[in-house]
């Protein structure tokens, strides 16, 4: 910073700007009256005045200026569109002078930069690269590198020019061509220039050598194999006389080393040596940056050493001294010094650990964390996350700093801290960390990050859950707040967990778990705006286990379920789940021998759904009604209690139907032709069937059509669509009867394999294209699930509603053939695709196993958790406010502040405000009055007036939204103790090592 000031003192003497604007200075002072008309005049004057200075036509300057003055995006767009029209017309005129053309190209660049399409002019830019004049060539190259991506069709027109220019005698032309190489040459065109670029590694100009190296580096990115054979060239360049070339060579070497460390191990000594020399200031002074010797080269070298030393004791030992030296020498007051320190820490955490260096690194981290700068804190947290893998104890001394960062209003810092917590989670601290993460997750709006946080919560919960109750509660929270973002599989896992329980033998624990789940759901279910996925879980669990314990009456549960259906009347899937759950509750009641009658609201729900537009809901309703009329025995068979985990047998060949098929064929039915044959040999079958068709089409039929008969039994599934819940029930007659018929002969699964068969194919049909992925307790998601369902042969007894079912009674038999076999093919395809479901089950079984291991039942917890669950629904996320304020501020800004705000001196560091007279013009440029002066002063301190206002308003808005539990900063003893407790809970304990823990961070 100091250096820069000096720089400025020297350079403020020069001042083109002063020259430029001194004439306008007077106007600028007036401009503060914010008289718009006046402003515009001044703007024009300014543009005129600057014409000479900027060397462009007035037309172009006007364009830039009018865009600068545009008050809205739409105004800007209008201007640009007009400009595009003009350019389109002009650029195609014949005989445009080259200088004019050059300006057009630059105008195209400008348009493109503003986000508009300038593709109509690309070809002219390409043409310009062919020009002999270096000036135009350079413009052409600049334009094409900005316009074209490496896969653009026009690239092929440039390759030739590049080849030619790489051979040019003028090194500046070669440089321009090499620049273009980096952007434009793609995998296919690399061979066209590779040889030339390699030759340029020996060019006499260091600038060319450097760019050639970087071009090879970019080739490596695009096609690693293309430059792999050039290792020796790079190694040679490492010893180049020019430090710039040497520095550039580090990039391709880093790439190669990233791919494979081993062939480069011998370079360790060279790298260490170079690093040592750099650190000892052996490079020319010009490579110093803010008094630090070639920091960018140092950083790159440290990155390389980190790779080389990883897991290699011998190499690592060579590095210890130099890393230690650099850390000692680095200037912690400057940003660049800290950048080097951070890189050292990264390196130390990557190479074979050295206790001494680890200690130094820990100290450096401590300094980062203690710093006031958010940037350094951020780096500190990141570095801590790296070092923690090697020495887990290190977090201990920084616990409070970490907690502070967690509470920080800066979202970036907070996220980084959560990342750290995620890395240090273990079974002892999982509860706190996950709770925190969920709290945070609730508060963020960014879906990308919300999804990530949610999945991290789920991952940690599955991995470390201390108890099942906790797991369920945690999942509830995650679902409640990010239900639409989490993987549907998670919901499915949760349902299975509840259904299967954790222990093979411990039934009481299972029922306790279920009871607690039911209890928690009953509490949550009334919340508004629950995600659909979560509601489905709730309905399923309530239906399955709501009345199991006898704690809640059937009517209570039914009432809740009716409420759900009513409250979410637009969500057919949830409604389907609710109705099925109601049916289950009713059946269980009946099966238990209790007298039950439907609640009035349930009745009306049924009536409503019987007329629903959704055929699925309608069907469910009719089925429910059908069940109402059945006797207890039948019901018990249809809806066995707690049978969601039972397996059922499926006869995939449908062999039990053979008799029936045989009989049908004997009676004259057409044999079933698999769809593949039909579609594949369409013509043949047409010919084959020709006669019979002829018979029917060419002569009138006088006899009545015969009663439609199912030709092949497999069409049962398509035509008769039972809800999956009824799947074990089958119809003895393949029916075209309305499914409403209450007198279906119902055959329980146990005595009819056929039931499961029809169910199975039906299941397959329905699952296809159904959004609901985890209706069945054991199925995985998506289309593959339909297949895996069969694999796992799970029962569908208590399966979930399938929304897509169609009550399609009067299907033409042939048509149903087609459908069935299509489905069959899919089934086959997915069957042969693999046995995902089984393995998956095992996996997730393993996951539950995990939690089993660490099962600690904490009875008190059940009572506490639900409370937190509801408490969690705290709406206003802090960053919403963060965003809101400044946005408003910005708009206000742009509408009231003069467009010449843009004139603010970027680096106008005339720190000496008293010398204002000298810098009057500069001050005028910024349209400055006293209020703007701090702008000039604070350029480098990063504080600015506008920002300051923001800060205050932000602090105002953030504080109130802080959670009550949050630990505020300040020397409050209670807070400090709370914080300490929290820290301990997280598994880190303060030690006597740093007794000043509190004073450090709270002071």
């Amino acid at each position: 910073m100091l250096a820069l000031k000096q720089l400025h003192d020297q350079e403020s003497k020069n001042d083109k700007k002063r020259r430029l604007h001194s004439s306008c200075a007077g106007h600028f002072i007036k401009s503060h009256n914010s008289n718009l008309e006046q402003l515009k005049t001044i703007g024009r004057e300014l543009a005129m005045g600057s014409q000479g200075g900027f060397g462009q036509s007035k037309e172009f300057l006007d364009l830039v200026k009018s865009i600068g003055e545009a008050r809205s995006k739409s105004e800007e767009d209008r201007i640009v569109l007009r400009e595009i029209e003009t350019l389109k017309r002009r650029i195609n005129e014949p005989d445009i002078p080259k200088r004019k053309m050059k300006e057009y190209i630059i105008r195209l660049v400008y348009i493109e930069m503003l986000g508009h399409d300038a593709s109509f002019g690309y070809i002219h830019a390409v043409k310009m690269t062919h020009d002999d004049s270096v000036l135009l060539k350079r413009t052409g190259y600049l334009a094409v590198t900005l316009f074209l991506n490496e896969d653009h069709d026009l690239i092929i027109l440039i390759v030739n020019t590049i080849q030619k220019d790489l051979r040019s005698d003028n090194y500046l032309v070669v440089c321009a061509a090499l620049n273009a190489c980096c952007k434009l040459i793609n995998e296919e065109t690399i061979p066209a220039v590779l040889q030339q670029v390699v030759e340029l590694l020996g060019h006499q100009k260091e600038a060319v050598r450097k760019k050639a190296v970087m071009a090879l580096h970019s080739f490596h990115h695009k096609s690693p194999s293309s430059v792999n054979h050039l290792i020796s060239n790079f190694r040679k360049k490492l010893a180049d006389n020019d430090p710039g070339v040497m520095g550039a060579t580090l990039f391709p070497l880093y790439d190669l080393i990233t791919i494979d460390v081993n062939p480069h191990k011998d370079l360790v000594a060279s790298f260490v040596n170079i690093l040592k020399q750099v650190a000892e200031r052996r490079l020319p002074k010009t490579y110093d940056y803010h008094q630090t010797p070639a920091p960018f080269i140092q950083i790159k070298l440290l990155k390389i050493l980190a790779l080389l030393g990883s897991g290699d004791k011998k190499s690592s030992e060579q590095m210890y001294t130099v890393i230690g030296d650099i850390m000692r020498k680095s200037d912690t007051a400057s940003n660049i010094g800290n950048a080097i320190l951070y890189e050292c820490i990264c390196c130390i955490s990557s190479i074979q650990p050295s206790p001494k260096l680890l200690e130094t690194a820990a100290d450096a981290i401590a300094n980062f964390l203690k710093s006031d700068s958010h940037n350094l804190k951020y780096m500190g947290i990141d570095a801590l996350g790296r070092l923690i893998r090697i020495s887990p104890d290190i977090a201990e001394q920084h616990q409070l700093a970490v907690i502070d960062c967690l509470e920080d209003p800066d979202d970036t810092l907070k996220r980084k801290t959560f990342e750290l917590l995620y890395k240090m989670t273990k079974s002892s601290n999982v509860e706190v960390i996950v709770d925190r993460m969920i709290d945070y997750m609730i508060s963020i709006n960014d879906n990308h990050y919300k999804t990530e946080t949610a999945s991290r919560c789920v991952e940690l919960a599955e991995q470390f859950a201390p108890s099942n109750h906790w797991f369920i509660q945690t999942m509830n929270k995650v679902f409640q707040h990010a239900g639409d973002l989490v993987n549907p599989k998670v919901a499915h896992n949760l349902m299975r967990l509840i259904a299967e329980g954790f222990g093979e033998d411990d039934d009481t624990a299972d029922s306790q778990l279920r009871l607690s789940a039911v209890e928690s759901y009953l509490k949550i279910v009334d919340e508004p705006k629950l995600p659909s996925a979560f509601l489905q879980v709730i309905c399923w669990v309530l239906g399955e286990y709501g009345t199991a314990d006898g704690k809640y009456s059937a009517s209570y549960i039914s009432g809740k379920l009716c409420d759900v259906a009513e409250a979410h009347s637009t969500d057919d899937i949830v409604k389907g789940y609710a109705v099925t759950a109601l049916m289950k509750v009713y059946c269980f009641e009946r099966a238990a021998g209790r007298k039950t009658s439907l609640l009035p609201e349930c009745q009306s729900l049924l009536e409503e759904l019987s007329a629903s537009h959704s055929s699925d809901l309608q069907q469910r309703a009719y089925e429910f009604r059908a069940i109402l009329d059945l006797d207890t025995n039948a019901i018990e068979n249809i809806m066995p209690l707690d049978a969601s985990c039972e397996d059922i047998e499926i006869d995939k060949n449908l062999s039990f139907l053979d008799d029936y098929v045989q009989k049908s064929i004997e009676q004259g039915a057409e044999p079933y032709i698999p769809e593949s044959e039909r579609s594949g040999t369409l013509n043949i079958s047409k010919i084959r069937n020709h006669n019979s068709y002829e018979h029917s089409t060419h002569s009138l039929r006088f006899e009545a059509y015969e009663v439609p008969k199912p030709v092949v039994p497999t069409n049962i599934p398509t035509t008769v669509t039972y809800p999956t819940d009824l799947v074990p029930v089958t119809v003895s007659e393949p029916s075209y009867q309305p499914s409403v018929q209450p007198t279906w002969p119902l055959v329980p699964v146990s005595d009819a394999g056929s039931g499961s068969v029809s169910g199975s194919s039906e299941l397959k049909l329905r699952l296809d294209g159904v959004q609901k992925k985890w209706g069945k307790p054991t199925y995985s998601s998506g289309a593959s699930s339909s297949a895996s369902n069969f694999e796992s042969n799970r029962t569908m007894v208590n399966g979930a509603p399938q929304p897509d079912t169609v009550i399609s009674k009067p299907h033409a038999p042939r048509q149903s053939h087609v459908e069935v076999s299509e489905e069959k093919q899919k089934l086959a395809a997915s069957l042969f695709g693999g046995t995902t479901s089984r393995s998956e089950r095992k996996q997730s079984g393993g996951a539950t196993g995990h939690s089993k291991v660490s099962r600690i039942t904490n009875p008190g917890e059940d009572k506490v958790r639900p409370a937190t669950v509801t408490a969690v629904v705290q709406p206003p996320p802090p960053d919403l406010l963060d965003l809101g304020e400044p946005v408003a501020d910005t708009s206000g800004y742009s509408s009231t502040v003069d467009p010449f705000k843009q004139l603010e001196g970027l680096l106008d560091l005339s720190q000496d405000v008293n010398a204002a007279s000298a810098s009057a013009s500069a001050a005028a440029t910024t349209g400055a009055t006293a209020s703007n002066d701090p702008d000039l002063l604070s350029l480098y301190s990063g504080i600015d007036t506008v920002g300051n206002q923001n800060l205050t308003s932000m602090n105002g808005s953030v504080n109130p939204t802080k959670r009550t539990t949050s630990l505020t900063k300040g020397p409050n003893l209670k807070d400090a103790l709370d914080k300490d407790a929290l820290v301990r809970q997280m598994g880190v304990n303060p030690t006597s090592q740093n007794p000043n823990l509190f004073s450090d961070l709270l002071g």
Partner: protein
Amino acid sequence: MIHFVLLISRQGKVRLTKWYSPYTQKERSKVIRELSGMILTRGPKLCNFVEWRGFKVVYKRYASLYFCMCINQEDNELEVLEIIHHYVEILDRYFGSVCELDLIFNFHKAYYILDEVLIAGELQESSKKTVARLVAAQDSLVEAAKEEAASISNIIAQATK
């Protein structure tokens, strides 16, 4: 690796964009919209980094202009912050107390300078002097070429037509 460089004014106006990774025009507009929404609203004392779509965007404000660079997760943010500053210092040397106006009207020159500082998304030259020398060489060449273009080649072009 730096994926792109953005210069955005406090009012959200684009001053310079340079893309080192392929983005379509549509994606570019979206990126700019998203990032200016995120960055311009941040308070002054916060980190100069934001996490975005699995990348990190390092930004620094100079007067009313924000310099933003998008980097990979594993890159060193502090270093990138200094790369930004390095570029600004070079601009400052070139323009002499550079201001936003210089960049608005001379964006193509800013591009040329950027091309000498960064190449293929990496810092190619860490010596300010070297960059300045190269840019000056190009400029003098351009001056010469300009004169030439004005006289001889124009005549030739006319004659050959």
